[in-house]
């Protein structure tokens, strides 16, 4: 197996994972998307709300607001020292108070911990007209994407690296070039060649058109993209995903040792 970094930005990271298998790459994807903990609002207690949105709707919207996550100072509730009772290491209180006429944004949420605040300050929560007001206390906790998608750190996806092979020069190479929806081919000195192998989406049009003179398939290589929703950086998502995977395998190894006796 080999790994190459193709592209990296604040929100997105693209890797090429060579000589692997779909089972392995998919396991990594599942651990990153559903086992990496992030912070999200879980409970909301309303003091007042006479806006047009019901308490449940406002609560749901608040849950979906991504919060900047600090994995070092917070624990998952069931793994915390307080055994799920709720303490400063596993819970964070956020409050909001506002009256109309105005739009309430995610930036109006007041967090007890300055490090944990909404990633995007401009998310509209609810619109208040003159005379309407809203006040609530919300509790944010760490959670994982397997319980609710609001705790998922991002969108992770992969695809096979395609292989485009020209076995025999087709008779009408110009038309092959114009038919390809991804512009994979070019004609140089009347010779058809592959210009952009990685862009191919395996539509098979060139194969059918040339009756098999061109062959497309997949290699055991993958393009993997990690797109973060902002709670953690893409590289943090990858590293934490692998850490959780590793920890679960270590636990399993211990269980296996007990079974032997």
């Amino acid at each position, binding site marked *: 197996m080999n790994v190459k970094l193709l592209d990296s930005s604040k*929100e997105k990271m693209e890797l090429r994972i060579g000589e692997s298998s779909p089972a392995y790459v998919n396991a990594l994807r599942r651990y990153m998307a559903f086992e990496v903990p992030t912070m999200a609002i879980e409970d909301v207690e309303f003091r007042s709300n006479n*806006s*047009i*949105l*019901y308490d449940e709707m406002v609560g749901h*919207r608040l849950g*979906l*607001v*991504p919060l900047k996550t600090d994995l070092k100072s917070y624990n998952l509730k069931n793994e915390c020292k307080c055994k799920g009772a709720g303490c400063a290491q596993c819970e964070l209180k956020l409050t909001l108070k506002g009256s109309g006429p105005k739009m309430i944004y*995610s930036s109006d949420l007041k967090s007890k911990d300055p490090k944990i605040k909404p*990633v*995007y*300050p*401009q*998310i*509209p929560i*609810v*619109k*208040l*007209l003159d005379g*309407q007001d809203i006040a609530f206390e919300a509790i944010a906790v760490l959670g994982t994407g397997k319980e609710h*998608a609001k705790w*998922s750190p991002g*969108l992770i996806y992969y695809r096979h690296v395609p292989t485009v092979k020209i076995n025999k020069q087709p008779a009408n190479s110009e038309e092959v070039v114009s038919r390809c929806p991804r512009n994979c081919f070019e004609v140089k000195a009347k010779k058809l060649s592959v210009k952009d192998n990685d862009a191919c989406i395996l539509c098979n049009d060139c194969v059918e058109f040339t009756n098999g003179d061109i062959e497309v398939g997949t290699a055991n290589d993958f393009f993997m993209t990690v*797109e973060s*929703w*902002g709670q953690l950086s893409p590289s943090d998502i990858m590293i934490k995903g692998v850490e959780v995977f590793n920890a679960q395998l270590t636990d399993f190894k211990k269980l296996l040792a007990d079974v032997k006796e």
Partner: protein
Amino acid sequence: MIIPVRCFSCGKPIGHLWEPYNEKLKKGEDGKKVMDKLGLERFCCRAIFLGHVDLIDIAAQYKKF
């Protein structure tokens, strides 16, 4: 009613992009270009922006029940 916080399909946070999107449309910019600039690359997120009607100003005048 009000712009969803996240895209229904992929989960990308999109709520904060609604106001800049509308401001730029009002200035006469092309919708496609504005969405590209805001980073809405998948058609699931784009469909939410194209189909959304902000009715909260009207609905808020009535009593909820």
